[in-house]
């Protein structure tokens, strides 16, 4: 009995050490990303400006048509891709390193450090789960460390899938540090118990998908914000304005606004069915545990509001007058609802879900 308690104690301490170590490594990664951005600032890039200001003469697409003489070797036909109606034909930025070799090196170092920190943090979460002998989301401290681990996991998965997302790194790691900082200072709770209503495999399904959805929505929200900046930058250039030095250096290196917009749409749309499922899993669990599948409990209500807000966003994109920036504002509003459901409802509102303390 005492032996078991000691093991648990040791595991809890190990978890804390790992979380602090992860924070240290994330901090190193953060500085490496910063260095990448700084080095990247040395290179002079102005592709967007070039693309937007040379538009007086609209360019023909680069079509390579077989016109060779009577050579025997023939190339296979190439597909020419054109931008959609009304979309700007702007190339994507080169990423934070801005094409600078040294910057790129630091970027790679940053990603490697992120991987390392992720593994350490994952270890911390697992040790915490082992020490309390249940899933690591019984209170907000555990929820926070799990959430940031999953968010970084989503980012690294996208990178592993060879998606162009390295530009997300700095923004993601900054907020991960913030999230962990709040977790260890304000929210830290020693291991505690779960009430029996929490024992159900629907809980595991419901909460784990909720965390995953939140992490993906978060990635979507970051790229939406960057889209808004990049879009006003492009608008300014297109209307002949002259953005500031910093804005130019910084925004120039991000993907084109159309790419950012598409990326955030894809991310949000891809996870929306999972969010729908999360709510339904929650309803099934509530049906089993509380005898009603829907009761307008504050947590339920905000999950519903978040769902409707994302549905609004998806609708908006199908409605001509609401595309682009307006839809982006809706996406941010929807993510705000998600955040409020996570933090606000736990802190400000009491309901059946506020069982585990803050």
């Amino acid at each position, binding site marked *: 009995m005492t032996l078991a*308690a000691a093991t648990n104690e040791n595991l*809890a301490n190990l978890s804390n050490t790992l979380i602090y170590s992860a924070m240290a490594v994330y901090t190193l990664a953060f500085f490496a990303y910063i260095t990448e951005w700084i080095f990247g600032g040395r290179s002079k890039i102005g592709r967007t400006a070039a693309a*937007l200001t040379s*538009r007086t003469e*609209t360019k*023909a697409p680069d079509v390579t*048509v*077989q*016109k*060779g003489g009577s050579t*025997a070797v*023939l190339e*296979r*036909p*190439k*597909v020419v*891709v*054109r*931008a*959609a*109606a*009304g979309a*700007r034909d702007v190339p994507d930025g080169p990423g934070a390193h801005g094409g600078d070799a040294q910057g790129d090196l630091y970027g790679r170092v940053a990603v490697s450090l992120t991987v390392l920190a992720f593994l350490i943090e994952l270890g911390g979460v697992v040790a915490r789960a082992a020490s309390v*002998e*249940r899933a690591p989301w019984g209170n907000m401290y555990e929820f926070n460390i799990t959430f940031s681990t999953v968010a970084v996991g989503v980012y690294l998965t996208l990178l592993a899938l060879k998606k162009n997302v390295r530009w997300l790194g700095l923004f993601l790691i900054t907020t991960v540090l913030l999230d962990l900082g709040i977790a260890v200072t304000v929210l830290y709770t020693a291991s*505690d*118990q*779960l*009430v*029996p209503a929490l*024992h*159900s495999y*629907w809980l595991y399904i419901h909460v784990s998908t909720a965390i995953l959805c939140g992490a993906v929505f978060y990635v979507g929200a970051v790229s939406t914000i960057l889209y808004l900046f990049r*879009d006003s930058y492009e*608008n300014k250039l*297109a209307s002949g304005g002259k953005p500031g030095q910093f804005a130019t250096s910084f925004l120039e290196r991000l993907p084109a606004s159309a790419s950012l917009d598409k990326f955030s749409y894809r991310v949000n*749309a891809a996870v929306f069915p999972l969010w*729908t499922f999360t709510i*339904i899993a929650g309803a099934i669990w509530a049906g*089993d*545990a*509380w*005898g*009603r*599948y829907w*009761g*307008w*409990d*504050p947590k339920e*209500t*905000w999950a*519903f509001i978040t769902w*409707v807000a994302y549905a609004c966003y998806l*609708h*908006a994109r*199908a*409605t*001509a007058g609401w595309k682009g*920036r307006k839809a982006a504002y809706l996406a941010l509003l929807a993510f705000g609802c998600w955040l409020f459901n996570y933090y606000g409802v736990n802190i400000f*509102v009491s309901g059946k879900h506020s069982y585990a303390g803050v």
Partner: protein
Amino acid sequence: MSKTTTGAPADATADDQDLGTAGSQLSTAPKEELPNLPSLGVIGWARWFWRQLTSMRVALLLLLLLSLGAIPGSLIPQSGTDETKVADFRSANPTLGDVYDKLGLFHVYSSVWFSAIYILLFVSLIGCIVPRTWQFVGQLRGRPPGAPRRMTRLPAYTTWRTEAEPEQVREAALALLKKRRFRAHLAGDAVAAEKGYLREVGNLAFHIALIVLLTAFAWGQLFKMEGNKLVVEGDGFSNTITQYDDFKSGNLFSQDDLDPFSFHLDDFTGTYETSGPNKGTPRTYQAALDYSVGAYGKDRKTIVKVNEPLEIGDSKVYLTAHGYAPVITVRDGKGNVVYSQAVPLLPLDSNVTSSGAIKVMDGYRNAKGVREQLGFQAFFLPSYVPGNEVASQFPALTNPVLNLEAYHGDLGVDSGIPQSVYQLDKSHLKEFKNSKGEQLRENLKPGETMQLPGGAGSVTYEATKEWANFQITRQPGSGWALGGAITAIFGLAGSLFIQRRRVWVRAVKGDDGVTVVEMAGLGRSESAKVPEELGDLAGILYDQAPGAPTDTGAESDGVSDSDAASAEGAEN
């Protein structure tokens, strides 16, 4: 259009003509119409109103309103969930309470204005789905539109020259596209093909599933019932309204809807973690029941656990709480038993420190032979650890101690004012005093007896039973709601992940007698998949109609066109 539109060429109309109907009917989304006010009469207005209501813009607005409208209900106490909090709020802020009352803010989700929003949304949804379904059926009956005149304007395009005959190329293209499960047909000098109709099916299925879900939910709200019953081990319950401790039901529920059944609580078992950081955490909570369905149903045995209700007909029996019920025997001065019963006590914390009251209402006469009532304030620790008198140290019955405070007089139960069974109204009660003249209060272990002073009788703590609280609910339509929800997820996935796209393959003889093949693709939304798939198809077709060497200088059709700033039809 939004600000993102830049430099759209002035020849957009020319573009449209070039594309013809190639991009038409690629979805069933309603066309955006600007609200220009009709000058017609009542019918004109009605039609205008209907068209507005079923437009995407208004659907969007109503959805926004719905989410905004749901917010106050999560911040203001709701009478449906917590009546006492509402009462507290009202007494703390009387004026604000009145305003909230007028606005229905204490029951947002059944208020007039909230209902108005979702009913409008509902009507909008139906008004939108029906024409879209017809339109889609029409699209399925018809064929994909023919190739646009200038295919270079489409978002994905490729071309090559071949020595194969145009007919051969078209035939090969038709066979290829059909094999790839496109709906394809020959239209003039080109093959027109379309794929991904499941996107539309998914979208319609999703919206229809929403209707089913909402209807099932509303149905459930109207016909639901919910009641609670506390049962001590050895006691039973039969499903009639009078047996419930409390009972709530929807507006259209009638007593005849109660499923006929009864049950008997044989045994309640709770086991708890005995060590580690989770010491005291319940590991199992289960109630062993004997139940029978219908008037003459045969007895069956079952186990009900916290997340595993017993289902009988449409009703579900949930185990929601448990506690202890000490068995108490009270005797009068002559030794006659005047009270003998298990008394359920209310748990106060997670270690089941409990409190309650024992009320002896009739049959007791005091030492002088005068009728009186007896009351005992009970405080119970299932695991008493010496030194800690105020809280139990573990939830199981390891060392139970019952603390009793004795009173006599008038319990006030006949005053007509409803009284909690767990509390004593001490206003007309007198304390029994011990030999030192203090309030009589004793700790009892099972089997022990406390004597009341002056031959007033005695009270014995015989043993401990457990009680379980059962919530019995009936919510018809939940099967439909679940079915709707699952359909909605699949429909949504189909709608979001499937691309609806068209491919055209034109093969004609050029001026020099060599066949020119042109291929183009168009998606419902701009996506990297469309050009990828087109390249793939072109590669296969190219193998069947290999490239031909050309005269230098001969230009392929249309590609040199320089004002190629935009292509119509690709949205998103």
